[in-house]
C-alpha cells in the first residue's frame, strides 16, 4: 500500500486508498445492537418505579387507613334523602343517600367525566351530573347515561349507635 502511494501517477483505484469500507456494514449492525441494548435498559429502568409502587402496595405501606368519619345521624336523614359530606380529605366531596330503611350508599360525587359534583335526583332515583347530564346508577355507581364512562368510587359506610360513619373508599374495580 505505502509503496504505491509514492508512485506517480497513481493508479485509478488509488484515489480511494485511504477509504476503508471494510467492516462498515458490521459496524452498522453493531451500532444497531447497541441501540437495542440501550432500549432494553430504558425499559428496565422505567419498570423500576412501577415495581416499587406495586411492591409498596403489596406490603400495605400505602394502604391508606382513614379514620372513620361521622357523616350524620340516622335520625336526621329521611329515606330517599341525601347529604353531602367530604371523605377522606376535606376537598373530596361525597354524597350519602339513604335508599331504604337500612340501605345506605355513599359515593365520592366528583363526576368521573369532568369532576362536577353529582347530585341525587329523588324523583327519578338517579344520580345526575348537571354539567353534561351524566347519570349514574344509585345502587352501584355505574354510569348509565351521558359522557361519564367510569363508575363513581364507592364509600363504605357503617352504622353505629344511630350515627352513620364513612369507613373507607372502595377500590376501583375494572
Amino acid at each position, binding site marked *: 500500500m505505502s509503496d504505491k502511494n509514492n508512485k506517480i501517477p497513481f493508479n485509478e483505484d488509488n484515489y480511494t486508498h485511504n477509504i476503508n469500507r471494510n467492516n462498515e456494514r458490521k459496524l452498522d449492525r453493531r451500532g444497531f445492537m447497541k441501540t437495542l441494548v440501550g432500549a432494553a435498559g430504558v425499559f428496565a429502568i422505567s*419498570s423500576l418505579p412501577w415495581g416499587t409502587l406495586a411492591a409498596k402496595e403489596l406490603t400495605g405501606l400505602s394502604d391508606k387507613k382513614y379514620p372513620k368519619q361521622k357523616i350524620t345521624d340516622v335520625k336526621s336523614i329521611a329515606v330517599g334523602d341525601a347529604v353531602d359530606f367530604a371523605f377522606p380529605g376535606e376537598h373530596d366531596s361525597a354524597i350519602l343517600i339513604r335508599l331504604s330503611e337500612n340501605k345506605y350508599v355513599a359515593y365520592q360525587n366528583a363526576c368521573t367525566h369532568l369532576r362536577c359534583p353529582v347530585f341525587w335526583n329523588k324523583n327519578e332515583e338517579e344520580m345526575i351530573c348537571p354539567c353534561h347530564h351524566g347519570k349514574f346508577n344509585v345502587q352501584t355507581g355505574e354510569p348509565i347515561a351521558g359522557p361519564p364512562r367510569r363508575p363513581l368510587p364507592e364509600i363504605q359506610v357503617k352504622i353505629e349507635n344511630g350515627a352513620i360513619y364513612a369507613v373507607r373508599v372502595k377500590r376501583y374495580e375494572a
Partner: protein
Amino acid sequence: MKHKYRNVVLLLAVLMLNIIFTQYMVHQYFFEHYKNSLIAAIINVGLFPIAFIIYKNDKKGVSTNE
C-alpha cells in the same frame, strides 16, 4: 451471513418481550393485581442483562470470525 444476524434477532425478541411485559405491568397495576405487576417489572429489569450478554457474546463471535 445467516448467523451474523442471529443475535440481532435475539435482541429484537428481547425488546418485544420488554414491550409485552411493560404493557402487562402497567395494566396489571391499574387492575390492582400488584403481584403480577411486580413480577412483570422484575422480568423487565432482568431482560436488560440478558440483552447485554447477547451483545457481549456477539462481539467475541464476530472478532474471531473475520
